């Protein structure tokens, strides 16, 4: 997979084999917008506020996270992964949705597996090992998006 910054301030993703498509689809599967929104809402410890937060803010968080995932899902659909996949063009206005979706996926994987970087190579469980690898690749993609798209002067 290649991720290349574009002149308009966005980026494009070129897949090189089927595994890249599986990985990109995994972003959607690994993320859990509703769970993340609930976890963030639970950060509000003050009983004075927490009830209103659940009623008014939580639905907005869920909607926002779902909307970001929908942007990625739509981009993958447009690129038509399969025999002759198209490059995925991500315009600057969608960079944040990609970053958000990758972050949602990583937050959920971390929540499920509690990775320990010091013992990463010793993971016996194949599902855990695969999840760790996906998490590392998502992190690399996020770093590129942050450096090349989100931190660009006009972003």
């Amino acid at each position, binding site marked *: 997979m290649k991720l290349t910054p574009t002149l308009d301030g966005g980026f494009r993703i070129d897949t090189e084999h089927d595994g890249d498509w599986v990985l990109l689809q995994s972003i959607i599967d690994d993320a859990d917008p509703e769970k*993340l929104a609930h976890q*963030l*809402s639970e*950060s*509000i*410890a*003050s009983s004075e*506020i927490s009830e209103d937060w659940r009623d008014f*803010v939580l639905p*907005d*968080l869920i909607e*926002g*996270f779902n909307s970001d995932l929908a942007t990625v899902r739509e981009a993958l659909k447009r690129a038509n992964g399969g025999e002759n996949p198209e490059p995925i063009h991500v315009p600057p206005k969608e960079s944040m949705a990609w*970053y*958000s979706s990758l*972050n*949602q996926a*990583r*937050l959920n994987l*971390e929540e499920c597996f509690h990775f320990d970087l010091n013992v990463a190579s010793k993971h016996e469980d194949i599902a855990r090992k695969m999840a760790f690898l996906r998490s590392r690749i998502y*992190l690399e993609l*996020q*770093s590129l998006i*942050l*450096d090349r798209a*989100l*931190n660009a002067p006009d972003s």
Partner: protein
Amino acid sequence: MSDSDTATLTRQETSLSTPWNVIVFDDPVNLMGYVTHVFMKVLGYNETLATKLMLEVHEAGRSVVWTGEREKAEFYTQQLQAYQLRASLERSE
């Protein structure tokens, strides 16, 4: 003053409402550069201050990133959560 007159007393009261703190907690996932980026975007801080607060979150586990009136504190907290940062608010002591 006759019996039918109404006396009006004016009393001035000054009430200072307690300020609220917006707090951000450390987490094992969010990139340090991203947290700095969000502080600049949401709170309007310059890069130096945003980086200083990000490092405080990272090293101390939490940081008070803004203090002020409740409505604005709620708004900032909501925005920070929308960017997937673990943020909360509490009354300032």
